[in-house]
């Protein structure tokens, strides 16, 4: 049996063009699968570790500011059944202004510096914790510090409660509530970089509070309670108990830990990534299975003479099949091993670029190769598939010892191709492609499979870039203001004038319920200035913008429409409080923000039965006026347009890097497959090339034929890849970014052609190696037909 396995192995090893594509496909599939899941698992494990170690809250109660002596103490709250730990803090909005004048929104979390918080701690990555002796020492979040190249010891200005003070960075750290960079879910457009999380001692804010003439409080105040629950506590029961404990106070908002914006953002992005992987892997599995069947069929067929000899000597067919199965397992195992090796850099790439794309502060969890077994099992599924091909071939092998090299293959397609008016070298190359259609099919299909991966990844990356451009186009403003309270329009005018802003558009906002034919959904309804092109958090997929002439028009996102069972042109019922109205869907939006709709300001006023006060404004102005606006005591939260543009481009670039990497893998694999196939095809015809060289034909003449052959194989692979590339791209876009609806079909076909042309033109490179091989060909040995080569 050992001899059998040895003989079969050596035979298989000689035919590199047949087993190399299989190994490559399996290796890439394993590398992508294991590497991507490992990278994402590492991110998720880091998150879970941080949530655990830094004690992310289970419930967060935001109340109207109260003196700390009046609220229930932490021990009193921890005595409530189900509550494990409780901590009070003060959380205030503000603005941080750096030395270079850059202003960023800030959330200042004030804690007792003499101890670490029992809920919502910070992981220090640099510097030290707060010190009761250091009045102005603060800890800032890692992403903010990295984005602005800050280090412990640096100072910046903090504006809160309409007053400024300075803060000095004592430490830089990671906050569990701001893992996905700094986002403030109270902003209309939460986005990374929209604010800095600052952990401060009470003195930083007390100073400002004291200077505020409106400050009527005596002593420190709190407005934010964070609580963790026992493992066996019922969340709703405990929430109700806590609500009762806070009955004397005005509770403004209650948030569950999983609903905290950063947590939701992080989870949804992670799962979006995981979501499109099964499509990639399914593609690979199907392609690898097909290529394996064809390759094993070819390999076993090329061993017919040997098989016939052994069968004639009485070796059982089952032993031959077993020997081939051993080779098959070795082939798949080789692919798995190589793939596991490749998965390490893939995992690193995924976690690094995810980190950059999402602004995730750090990756500390060890790698977990849990997907390894799944990948091995998926690869192992290929073995019975390949076995079937071998079994079928060996079953059909006759006990025929009489092998004559004088036997030549039937003309097959050669007769058809003989009619083509081609040069002799080209004709020879072309006919060599089709003399064994199955072998050509192995090469074409395996190259096509990898081209599909390459093409769909490149197109997906392009779609991402287009998506980003559209996203940025829809945000041409320089700043987005969210007023701290309902303001009259003349107050808004004053605010803008004092800040030096001359151009702005006001919008209003209310929480509303919108009902379609299937369901109702709670949304944030914006009363938008219809006079200008929509520049909110989305762009138009179909339909039209809001029209001042159309009073009952509404714009909704395509996802929200899907949820409520409505589409363009349908009527939907909108309810705000106890007032309702009927609106017609005039436009469908693509938006990254869920549950948001747009009607005209006039329509909002009509719906409410009274003029709605401005909730915010889009402003146009230079950096200085935006900064002035940010520091204005009445401005509330201000988001810089520049922040969004910079962050969006960086995030997209990181994401595109991952996608492009997968594309490069695919393109490289396609080239390797064709190169390997071309070499083995040329080697199999060594005797024929020896004859032609013996008759004095130059190597360059033979090279022309090989180039023609490689071009035909490449074009065949490209044509086969084209429809599947489109399909795969659609799937990735639909599952991951939902951008397919706006990418025009005709542009895609052109893009696909351009994307596939590049590797096709690179295919002739694959003719280079076999041509060089011919230069070194020992003609005498190639022509030898005696004995076993």
């Amino acid at each position, binding site marked *: 049996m050992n001899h059998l396995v040895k003989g079969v192995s050596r035979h298989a090893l000689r035919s590199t063009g047949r087993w190399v594509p299989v190994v490559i496909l399996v290796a890439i599939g394993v590398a992508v699968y294991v590497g991507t899941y490992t990278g994402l698992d590492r991110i998720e494990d880091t998150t879970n570790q941080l949530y655990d170690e830094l004690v992310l809250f289970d419930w967060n109660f935001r109340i109207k500011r109260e003196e700390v002596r009046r609220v229930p103490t932490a021990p009193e709250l921890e005595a409530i059944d189900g509550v494990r730990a409780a901590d009070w803090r003060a959380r205030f909005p503000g603005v941080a202004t750096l030395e270079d004048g850059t202003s960023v929104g800030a959330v200042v979390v004030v804690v007792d510096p003499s101890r670490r918080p029992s809920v919502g701690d910070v992981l220090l990555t640099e510097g030290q914790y707060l010190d009761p002796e250091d009045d102005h020492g603060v800890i800032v979040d890692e992403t903010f510090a990295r984005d602005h190249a800050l280090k412990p010891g640096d100072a910046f200005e903090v504006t809160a409660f309409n007053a400024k003070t300075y803060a000095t960075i004592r430490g830089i750290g990671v906050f569990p509530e701001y893992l996905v960079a700094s986002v403030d879910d109270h902003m209309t457009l939460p986005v990374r970089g929209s604010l800095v999380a600052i952990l401060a001692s009470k003195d930083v804010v007390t100073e400002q509070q004291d200077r505020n003439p409106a400050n009527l409080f005596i002593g420190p105040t709190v407005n934010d309670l964070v609580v963790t629950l026992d493992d066996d506590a019922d969340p709703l029961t405990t929430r109700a108990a806590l609500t009762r404990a806070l009955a004397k106070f005005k509770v403004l908002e209650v948030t569950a830990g999983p609903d905290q914006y950063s947590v939701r953002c992080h989870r949804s992005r992670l799962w979006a990534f995981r979501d499109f992987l099964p499509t990639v892997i399914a593609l690979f599995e199907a392609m690898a299975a097909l290529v394996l069947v064809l390759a094993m069929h070819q390999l076993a067929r090329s061993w017919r003479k040997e098989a016939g000899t052994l069968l004639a000597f009485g070796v059982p067919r089952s032993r031959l099949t077993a020997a081939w199965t051993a080779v098959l397992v070795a082939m798949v195992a080789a692919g798995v091993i190589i793939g596991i090796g490749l998965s390490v850099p893939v995992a690193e790439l995924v976690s690094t670029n995810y980190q950059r794309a999402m602004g995730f502060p750090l990756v500390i969890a060890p790698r977990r190769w849990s997907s390894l077994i799944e990948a091995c099992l998926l690869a192992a599924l290929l073995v019975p598939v390949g076995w079937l091909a071998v079994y079928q071939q060996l079953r059909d092998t006759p006990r025929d010892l009489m092998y004559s090299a004088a036997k030549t293959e039937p003309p097959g397609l050669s007769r058809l191709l003989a009619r083509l008016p081609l040069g002799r070298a080209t004709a020879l190359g072309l006919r*060599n492609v089709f003399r064994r259609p199955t072998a050509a099919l192995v090469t074409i299909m395996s190259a096509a499979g990898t081209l599909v991966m390459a093409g769909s990844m490149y197109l997906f990356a392009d779609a991402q870039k287009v998506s980003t451009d559209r996203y940025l186009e829809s945000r041409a403003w320089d700043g987005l203001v969210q007023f701290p309270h309902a303001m009259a329009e003349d107050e808004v005018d004053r605010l803008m004038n004092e800040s030096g802003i001359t151009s702005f558009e006001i919008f209003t906002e209310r929480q509303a319920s919108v009902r379609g034919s299937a369901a109702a959904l709670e949304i944030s309804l914006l009363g938008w200035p219809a006079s200008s092109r929509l520049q909110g958090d989305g762009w138009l997929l179909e339909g039209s913008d809001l029209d001042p002439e159309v009073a009952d028009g509404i714009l909704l996102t395509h996802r929200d429409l899907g949820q409520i069972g409505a589409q363009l042109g349908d009527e939907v019922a909108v309810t705000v409080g106890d007032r309702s109205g009927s609106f017609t869907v005039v436009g469908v939006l693509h938006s990254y923000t869920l549950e948001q709709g747009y009607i005209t300001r006039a329509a909002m006023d009509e719906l409410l039965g009274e003029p709605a006060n401005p909730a915010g404004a889009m402003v146009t102005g230079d950096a200085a006026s935006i900064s002035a606006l940010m520091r204005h005591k009445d401005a509330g939260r201000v988001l810089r347009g520049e922040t969004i543009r910079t962050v969006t481009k960086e995030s997209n670039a990181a994401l595109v890097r991952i996608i492009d990497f997968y594309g490069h893998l695919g393109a490289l694999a396609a080239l390797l497959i064709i190169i390997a196939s071309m070499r083995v095809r040329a080697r199999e015809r060594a005797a024929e090339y020896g004859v032609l060289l013996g008759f*004095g034909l130059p190597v360059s003449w033979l090279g022309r034929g090989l180039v023609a052959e490689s071009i035909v194989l490449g074009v065949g692979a490209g044509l086969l890849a084209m429809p599947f590339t489109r399909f795969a791209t659609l799937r990735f876009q639909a599952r991951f970014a939902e951008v397919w609806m706006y990418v025009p079909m005709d542009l895609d076909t052109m893009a696909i052609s351009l994307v596939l042309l590049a590797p096709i033109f690179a295919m002739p490179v694959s003719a280079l190696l076999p041509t060089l091989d011919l230069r070194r060909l020992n003609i005498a040995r190639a022509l030898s037909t005696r004995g076993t080569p």
Partner: protein
Amino acid sequence: MLQPSITRSRLMTSIITADGVCKDYVTGPVRTSVLRQVAMSVPEGAFAVLVGPSGCGKSTLLNLIGALDTVDAGQLSVAGTALHDASTADLMRFRRAHVSFVFQYYQLLPTLTAQENVEVVLESLRLSNAEIEERATSMLKAVGLADKHARFPGELSGGEQQRVAIARALAKRPTLLLADEPTGSLDRETGRPIVDLMKAQQQATGSTFFVVTHDPVVVEAGTHVYEMVDGQVAAR
């Protein structure tokens, strides 16, 4: 009996001159000496036949003469070209200009028709397409296959395939035609006409034929017979 030293008069009419030619083959750690101090001289225009037991090195010597392989030691001149000193490019030019081959297993290209198999080797001669076509057609006619020019090798019998191979070899109008067991895979009935054809063509063209064979029919047709024993050649 070894050939006595070669006289000057013989050198002037010899198309193949070998003096002390050696060739070894190395397979892993094993070194096999195939040709040992071969000395021979083949006159121009001869139908020379080389016989010898199986595995004695006949095909090896043929390959060296045809510049398909290189000598390890000694001197080998063919058609005025010192092959022992020639570079790879020189050997290629030599083969193009002077040599054609007929193989035991025909070695036709299976994806080309009979006509195309003959035409393809003429590509290197810088002839026009019309000239190439004309030569191929006339050679196929000469070997009696004019009506089968469009057939593929798989559609021809062994004898017919060998005829195509001969037509291919002769289409180049070579100085020297080398044949390795040309009737080796044919039966006697098929092989004799092939020998007759080769003989007739040799006489018609005046080319030198050098044939390696076991076939007594071929030996009978030869004008000069050489025997190889233990890696050395002697004229019979």
